[in-house]
């Protein structure tokens, strides 16, 4: 079941994409009065199957500009449910920028402009009646540098449920999320201690636990291990494998071995130079496919060069 898309290496001309990754059934429009409006509780759950997989995100020609400079151009791909999708590529290829589109974090940057379309379970994520705050609750994010709040471990984990007015037993949420993040045994006796007293790896697992407290469907991870040592990294990777059973995970990583180890599918992005007398770069999706295929038998020359260490 090799599903792969590929663009030919033609930096100067508009890309010609043979997008076999597209689900065949993209005909339905998102329901009006969508579930994103704040007071609607029920999600627009879709049982639509795409080539045997539930598709969580479907992007169509997504481009991001910062001011007038393009950061990412025409990305179309899909993210499947309960899988780990890795974005790899050299610096400046726009993979983090793209990740931030999925929970509308780019909205917070005044100069950022996003075009194209991102569907989340068939709903346009950027439609007028979609509340970005609600999007961010349902699509969680873990950042490059562990960023616990300067408060106790307990307070770190109760902030999400509190601001979302979730009717839950806070003690229970704290314990469940810490257990899921494989951190419970290490911190159960010091929940009142400041989160800054934890090691870097523990802090990052705390941040993952924190993301779980608001029960998101998707967890976006932006180079979550880049500030960690190999042992802490291994912990996080084990954890991701564990979480994959219940969550859809999208991870941006600089570390190709990490992508190969943890992900089910890999998307390779590359950075292109805008014009010869200007070295501003923008990103482009080269191909996406099953991780084993991307690493053993890439469809594009540039992917092969990158994963074999010839550039990047």
């Amino acid at each position: 079941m090799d599903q792969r898309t590929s663009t030919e290496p033609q930096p100067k001309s508009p890309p010609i994409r043979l997008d076999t990754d597209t689900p065949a059934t993209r005909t339905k429009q998102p329901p009006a009065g969508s579930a994103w409006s704040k007071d609607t509780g029920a999600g627009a759950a879709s049982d639509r199957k795409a080539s045997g997989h539930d598709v969580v995100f479907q992007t169509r020609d997504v481009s991001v500009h910062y001011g007038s400079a393009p950061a990412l151009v025409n990305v179309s791909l899909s993210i499947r449910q309960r899988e780990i999708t890795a974005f790899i590529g050299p610096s400046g290829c726009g993979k983090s920028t793209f990740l931030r589109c999925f929970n509308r974090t780019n909205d917070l940057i005044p100069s950022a402009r996003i075009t194209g379309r991102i569907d989340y379970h068939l709903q346009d994520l950027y439609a007028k009646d979609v509340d970005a705050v609600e999007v961010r609750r349902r699509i969680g994010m873990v950042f490059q540098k562990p960023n616990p709040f300067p408060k106790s471990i307990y307070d770190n984990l109760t902030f999400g449920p509190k601001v979302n007015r979730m009717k839950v037993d806070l003690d229970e949420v704290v314990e469940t999320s810490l257990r899921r993040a494989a951190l419970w045994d290490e911190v159960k006796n010091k929940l009142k201690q400041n989160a800054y007293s934890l090691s870097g790896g523990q802090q990052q697992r705390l941040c993952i636990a924190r993301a779980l407290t608001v029960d998101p469907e998707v967890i976006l991870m932006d180079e979550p291990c880049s500030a960690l040592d190999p042992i802490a990294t291994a912990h996080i990777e084990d954890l991701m494998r564990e979480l994959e059973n219940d969550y859809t995970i999208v991870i941006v990583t600089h570390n190709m071995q990490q992508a190969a180890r943890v992900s089910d599918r890999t998307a390779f992005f590359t950075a292109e130079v805008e014009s010869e007398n200007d070295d501003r770069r923008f990103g482009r999706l080269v191909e996406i496919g099953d991780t084993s295929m991307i690493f053993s038998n890439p469809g594009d020359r540039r992917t092969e060069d990158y994963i074999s260490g010839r550039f990047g």
Partner: protein
Amino acid sequence: MAVATSERPGRQTSGSFKAPVGNTVREKFTQLVLFLATCVALVVLATLLIDIFKDGVGGLSLDFLTQYTSRIAANAGIRSGLTGTLSLMVLVALMAFPLGVGAALYLEEFAPKNRWTRLLETNINNLAGVPSIVYGLLGLSVFVFFVGFGRSLITGALTLTLLVLPVVIVASREALRAVPREIRDGGLALGATPLQVAVRQTLPAAIPSILTGMILSLSRAIGETAPILVAGAVGSRRADNEPWNLSEAYTAIPIQIFDFVKRPQEEFQIQVASAAIIVLMTLLLFMNSAAIIIRNRYARNG
């Protein structure tokens, strides 16, 4: 044609590591000049302090704090000034804190970054440098005459609030700006609204620095004489000031000091005034120490 590295001109491969003589001399001389500059400042300050202490310490007693002012130097006290200064402090803190922090939160967390807000920011920075007497004149024309508060405690408190507000805003903004971007990102990623993040994460993280700035602003406010002198503080008063008696006439320690040195008798000019200065300086010292303690505790925890 390869050039052997050892033949490169200018590369020294032997000899001692002694500094060239000229360098050492210039270095030492500069340090000496800088040291002398520090000494001048310290010596002047020390002379001033010693002089005041010598003159005033004899006049200090518990009675000096608990007695009202008097025509006889030996009986004079600064009770009304002390209560006035403390009342002003409470009122200024109550007004400047919410206004200053609110403005800082808005400018730092919510305001769009456009020409209008940049103009606003520049003006706030400039206001911090406006001479304090100008605030006094503003207080006189607006609060005393236009609003009709007269020469009352609330006029003094409002005038001093206006005086410290720009400083509080600038200090609070800097405190908020020092909170790492990642904390806001983390809050937003959990589905908190920008307001929830600002109030529950960013502000608490910044509050120690904000408090430090607030206390330093307050200590500036209580040391000011000119603005409240213009805005109707009275020099001689034989009653307590209380923060809740807003419409009463008021005085403050610096105003009383000014009153003492204006009197013809030498005991007032030297001994009583110096004693009052010692009280004021002790108060300021306490406040600045509090600011330093808060800052240090924050530095340890952060």
